[in-house]
């Protein structure tokens, strides 16, 4: 069983489209995250949810909207995709906020043409 699973793993789409990436964790963790890894491999947090409540919202365009229907799921919806959105998006979870270690999903590579 994969602890943190993301779908899809690869996504190729046109500029202006809307797309979603789903994430699920079966670790029983309270906190989930979305990170973006750019073309230079730099990793930066986008959002964090603790037990379905948004706790971290970094400077991210409004076109990105996370949704957490329950504490085991955190989805990312992106509207009006732009070329600069091309990146690998990682979902992660931790046992509780501030507990330290993050468990990552395999990443979803988004390519915007």
């Amino acid at each position, binding site marked *: 069983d994969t602890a943190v699973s993301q779908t899809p793993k690869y996504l190729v789409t046109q500029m202006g489209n809307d797309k979603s990436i789903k994430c699920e964790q079966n670790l029983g963790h309270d906190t989930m995250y979305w990170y973006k890894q750019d073309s230079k*491999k730099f990793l930066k*947090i986008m959002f964090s949810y603790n037990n379905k409540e948004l*706790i971290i919202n970094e400077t991210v365009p409004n076109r990105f909207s996370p949704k957490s229907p329950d504490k085991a799921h955190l989805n990312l919806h992106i509207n009006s995709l732009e070329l600069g959105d091309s990146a690998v998006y990682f979902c992660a979870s931790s046992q509780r906020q501030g507990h330290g270690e993050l468990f990552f999903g395999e*990443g979803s590579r988004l390519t915007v043409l």
Partner: protein
Amino acid sequence: AQTVTQSQPEMSVQEAETVTLSCTYDTSESNYYLFWYKQPPSRQMILVIRQEAYKQQNATENRFSVNFQKAAKSFSLKISDSQLGDTAMYFCAFSGGTSYGKLTFGQGTILTVHP
């Protein structure tokens, strides 16, 4: 805000030898965590080792150990008996203080292990 700096963009080592990856960080917090994550070509982020700042003893996980110098804000990773499977990008990361609940990553160091 916390920052993490990895000054070595690339490193290489021969199989079975030892290599050390550098990491420095900047924080005014006294309680925090430090991590090394490994990202092989498969893209998966894998935790290598973690260190709690309040612990003076350096963390060790099999062939991986750290040299944690709290006063110098330095957190280097030593890989002993390097193996081909250690080839990956290595990220140093910080969690604590106002960044509690998220990781702040360094720029990464690409490590290549040669046969």
